[in-house]
């Protein structure tokens, strides 16, 4: 924990793709130990913000802080090792490998035996394997995937594939988790279950989480605070109730529909 209370924050962050400004001087923070929602219409810059936080895009100007350390130029894999693990909007899995192998990929961050002792199959490697597998079993059980653990992920329904990615993110119990629309494509029951599982993980580990999501119900259920964005700019931050009732957010989100309500 640091003085600002933010596990991660940005300061005047600008991201450009050619002449297009995807993020314009955004200063937002993820409160340590809290679940923060990221909302906004398509093209608002939510995913770009996630990419900038996780090191997946180049930053034009501004600073990204992790625990008040400047990580703006830290490469994506180093940021992951420092504890920022993300999921993707389009699920990215090892398609023809088992659920277990996909989840175990996330164990990269756990301290591993040297590559040499892995290649030679020394005892350290087998010990590590047991530990990693038991962690995988834990997280699979938490997300209700235990019975599928040896199935190939390309044979799974879409909703389960999303959960596999969430499991891959969570297995190393990272201090900062960034999820990009984890509930997209899930039915109502699946959403409630996923929200429940994320809340449970959060309670157990106290990790900091940011979730990009469109579903208002899901965000309200899960998030303590919400950052609203529109057209690459930060609109406001507040509790879900405050944000969803704000006129600016309603216009950005619902366009004229909000006026009809008003």
């Amino acid at each position: 924990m640091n003085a600002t209370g933010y596990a991660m924050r940005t300061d005047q962050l600008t991201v450009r793709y050619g002449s297009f400004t995807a993020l314009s001087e955004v200063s937002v923070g993820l409160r340590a130990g809290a679940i923060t929602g990221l909302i906004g219409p398509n093209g608002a810059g939510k995913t770009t913000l996630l990419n900038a936080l996780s090191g997946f895009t180049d930053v034009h100007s501004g600073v990204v802080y992790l625990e008040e350390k400047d990580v703006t130029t830290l490469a994506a894999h180093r940021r992951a090792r420092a504890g920022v693990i993300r999921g993707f909007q389009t699920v990215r899995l090892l398609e023809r490998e088992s659920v277990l192998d996909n989840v175990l990929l996330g164990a990269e961050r756990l301290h591993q035996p040297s590559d040499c002792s892995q290649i030679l199959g020394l005892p350290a490697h087998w010990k590590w394997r047991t530990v990693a597998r038991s962690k995988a079993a834990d997280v699979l059980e938490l997300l209700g995937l235990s019975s599928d653990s040896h199935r190939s992920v390309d044979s799974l329904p879409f909703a389960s594939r999303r959960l596999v990615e969430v499991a891959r993110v969570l297995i190393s119990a990272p201090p900062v988790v960034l999820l990009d629309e984890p509930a997209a494509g899930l039915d109502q029951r699946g959403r409630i279950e996923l929200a429940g599982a994320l809340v449970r993980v959060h309670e157990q580990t106290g990790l900091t989480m940011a979730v990009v999501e469109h579903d208002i119900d899901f965000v309200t259920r899960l998030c303590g605070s919400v950052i609203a964005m529109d057209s690459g700019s930060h609109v406001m931050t507040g509790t879900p109730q405050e944000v969803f009732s704000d006129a600016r957010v309603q216009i950005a989100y619902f366009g004229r529909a909000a006026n009809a309500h008003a």
Partner: protein
Amino acid sequence: MKSTNRKERWITVESSNPFGQLILGGLTSGLLYALLLLGFMVVFQVSKTVNFAFGQVGMVAAFSAWFFWSSLGLPLPVAIGIGAILAVVVNSAIGIIVITKIPAGRPGLDLVVTLGIFLFLTAVMQLLIDANAHAFPSLGGDKRTVLGGVVVNANDVAIMVLGVFVIGGVYVLFSRTTLGMELRASAENADIAASAGVNVRLLRLGTWTFAGLLAALVAVLVASRLSVDAFYMTPVLIKAFVAGMIGGMDRFFAPLVIAIGIGVYEALAIFIWGSSAGTPAVFLLIIIALAVMPKRFTAARHEVRA
């Protein structure tokens, strides 16, 4: 007429401008690489398949043309015409029977399957004709004139004219005509193109035919400058293939320019370091060029539309 004699001829014969001479030689070989690559790229556009046997399709044309001409005594144009028809038939057969059957999502499988075809075509020609190298008619190589101190023969002129017209023609066809649009559409998604009324099968057949003709044309020209046997097209194919991969098979001018560049550079290297230096100089340059190439030219665009 052995291949080495020919090479020496276009470098040393009474030319008073050795540098211009070597540029001409490099330019014409480079154009031949580019023309073969063009056929390779057209096939790739339609099938997304790397056809390792494509050079051998040309070999079939040139080798059989030689056979009909020298052993059966047919007039040269007739022999070459029959060779070209054979190339079209063989290429269409490969396209219809083999390439369209290669399942997607298995990288490397196309290489293995077409390697099998490569070996088959080589074996067939060795069996039907023989395994030796033979001199091919020089096709205008002896009709020379001197331009600015550079000895230019009819063969060189033919290659340059053909190169410009074929490459330009394909470019216009692809970018400016409805036929080109239909071709691109059916390459992108055959089902959608078909439902939009495009006769995908006919277009594909046209593509195989065109590519087969191109392979035959290049192979006959290469044979007329070197000699013909069952393997002689492999170095040409490798250089065309390399240029395509470096330039990107989904682009048009970049890979073709690289192919021509490889030809010129190869001639330059032979001129400077001697005739055995061509191969290593080319491949060393390829490694170095790719190693120092800035990232934005080498990697596909990094989109995290997550």
